[in-house]
């Protein structure tokens, strides 16, 4: 069996609601390791502890590194609280760590933590015994101020845990504790990142995408599904709605001057998202909009779009530079999918010179030729649902 110690961060700050946040975190950790052999999750004070069969250690770590609310994880040796066994484990973990990264050979420190106050040795005595064992076995010098390698020893009542590896987890809040939202997801780079950031602040999301066959092909649809699946690995989205947009898009295209088209499409998308929010019990709409990136993303046009929304619109990327967004997309594993070359529904219907500051009266006049409420209701009604 491998034990993985999972640390959570700012949950501690959540006074009276702390148990709600902790329970959500534990549920998300359980969901993350579900299906792995012999996976068990417990929550002794201040920790979430996962145990899995040894062969699933790597996969379990990979999945736990994607659980929002955790700040770091440490795969650990788990043993009886006995000082000789602890020293042997400290040697083994230190050796494994320097094998993975020879840089760590420079110096080390033992970091003991004794929650079992009945354990016969005090913390500094544990540190001395284990430190002697490690330096005798490996020859690595001790440096208690700036060690390259930190070997943690935690002595609890039932068991002791020894670890030399501390992997960063994403931090933030457990997905779901902040409520639910609809994410407007395209095949581009930005919207998946926006969904990830929203999930980091505790939002559970349903993704909504628009598909315009024949202007978009099956591969464009598969691409959005792949993006949604990658976000699901972060527990950022659970469901993808694929809404047919072709007929409405054609009518909108014909309704006003071509340069208004983008604003008209986006207002319609927001209306559909609004209906989905109501139907699915979501409190906000999350978009990948970014100030100034493209013509539809000026203050005027964002306002023209937002004005039709009955729910809060969240724009996690509003102040990001493209390079920042791209770097994050790479980190969360969506960039390579977004970079696939299939058209998404945004790019084909777009005029050569979209208006950067459409007049609201022009936009509304164009929409008056359609029954926009009915169009939105039909689209939402007929959207295809994919559970991720």
């Amino acid at each position, binding site marked *: 069996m491998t034990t993985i110690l999972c640390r959570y961060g700012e949950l501690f700050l959540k006074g009276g609601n702390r148990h709600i946040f902790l329970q959500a975190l534990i549920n998300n950790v359980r969901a993350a390791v579900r299906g792995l052999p012999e996976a068990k999750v417990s929550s002794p004070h201040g920790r979430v502890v996962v145990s899995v069969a040894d062969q699933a250690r790597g996969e379990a770590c990979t999945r736990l590194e994607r659980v929002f609310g955790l700040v770091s994880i440490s795969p650990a040796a788990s043993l009886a609280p006995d000082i000789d066994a602890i020293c042997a484990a400290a040697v083994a973990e230190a050796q494994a760590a320097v094998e993975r990264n020879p840089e760590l050979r420079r110096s080390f420190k033992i970091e003991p933590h004794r929650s079992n106050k009945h354990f016969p040795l005090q913390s500094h005595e544990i540190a001395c015994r284990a430190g002697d064992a490690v330096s005798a076995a490996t020859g690595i010098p001790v440096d208690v101020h700036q060690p390259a390698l930190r070997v943690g020893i935690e002595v609890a009542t039932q068991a002791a845990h020894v670890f030399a590896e501390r992997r960063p987890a994403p931090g933030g809040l457990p997905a779901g504790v902040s409520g639910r939202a609809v994410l407007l997801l395209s095949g581009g780079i930005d919207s998946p990142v926006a969904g990830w950031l929203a999930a980091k602040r505790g939002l559970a999301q349903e993704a909504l995408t628009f598909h315009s*066959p*024949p*202007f*978009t*092909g099956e591969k464009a649809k598969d691409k959005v599904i792949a993006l949604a699946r990658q976000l699901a690995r972060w527990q950022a989205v659970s469901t993808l709605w694929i809404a047919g947009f072709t007929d409405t*898009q*054609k009518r909108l*295209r014909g309704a006003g001057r*071509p340069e208004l088209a*983008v604003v008209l499409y986006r207002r319609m998308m927001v209306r559909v998202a609004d209906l989905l929010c109501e139907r699915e019990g979501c409190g906000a709409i999350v978009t990948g909009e970014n100030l100034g990136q*493209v*013509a*539809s993303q000026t203050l005027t046009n964002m306002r023209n779009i937002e004005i039709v929304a009955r729910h809060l619109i969240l724009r996690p990327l509003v102040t990001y530079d493209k390079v920042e967004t791209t770097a994050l997309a790479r980190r969360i594993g969506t960039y390579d999918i977004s*970079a*696939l*070359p*299939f*058209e998404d529904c*945004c*790019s*084909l*219907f*777009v*005029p*050569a010179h*979209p208006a950067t500051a459409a007049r609201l009266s022009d936009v509304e006049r164009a929409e008056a030729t359609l029954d926009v409420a009915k169009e939105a209701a039909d689209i939402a009604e007929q959207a295809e649902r994919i559970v991720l």
Partner: protein
Amino acid sequence: MIVYLDNAASAPPLPEVLAAVTHAMTDLYANPSSAHGLGAAAARALEQARGEVAALLRAQPSEIVFTCGGTEANALGLLGAAALARGRHVVVSAIEHPAVLRSAESLVSRGWQLGKVMPAPDGRVSAEAVLASLHPDTAVLAVMLANNEIGTLQPVAEIGRALRAAGRKLHFHVDAVQFAGLIPLDVETLGADSLALSGHKLHGPKGTGALWLRKGARVAPLWDGGRQEGGLRSGTENLPGWVGLGRAAVLCRENLRAGQQVAALRDRLESLVMEAIPRATTTVPAATPRAPHIASLRLAGLPAEPLLHALEARGVFASAGAACSTRAHEPSHVLAAIGVGVEDAVLRFSLSRLTTESDIKVAAGALREAVDEIASVVEVRPRGTRP
């Protein structure tokens, strides 16, 4: 109903090919190198397949090296010859398939010089231009038989004759993957040293191909191992695949006139389309020598990919000539070389011996509707403009 006009991408395996593959997988599972009777049966089937492929090309069985596909056959012909060459100059046509082009480019990092011969606007490189591009130390030359995107036939026999007349002793490789069993081919008169084939373009299985290597011509293997295929291609033989390729070769040879029927259907498609759609033209002049199965049509001012989806919605499956105005697609090097701009859609309808007159009528009608649908919505955008 499905009208499949993407045979230059992959042609559906014929039922006889499936039967031959199934038989080989079921009954001929032994390793052809094994000493026992089952191994001997497998080895006999392999040699029969080799003979069948050789017969299609009018070659000797000993001149056929089986491979895992057209790309490997091209790499073996081109890189294998380069590995043994004294000279350090390679020449290719600028419109080769990436299998040849990138192989040739890979030689540059090994100290080679690369020359690319540009085609005329009709999509053909001339023998004179090829000859003019040769240096004294040119060791390898590759020119394709038929271009995969626009279907133009390259004058490989003429180039072969010119090389002989000039007394050039370089290795002349021909990528004949788009031969498709529809173009008369006689390697004896071709004047080439090696020629690459792909199984699935001949209605055979994917993952199969062959290199014809003229008796006396030499290439180095790309890797070493058990030294199957005369030492040129180590690895346990893909017997089911190669038996299937052999069967496909037999079926091609039994119907050598198929090329003329296919060419007539292609011409019919082109004339139906150009009658119905004013903006449509053939990408290269119709009188250019072309592979019978490839109709490349240019549609001014439209994006290619939505047209393909609109065709698909009507049951017609084709390909873009690769010059989509999609932002992330690389423009086609072939279309760029003949001066076709990215503002036009170039669609490739590729036929096969299975294509019927009714397929052609359906395709032409579907294209007319697709063009109307897309043109009504999409205005022309200069490339590179973004939403």
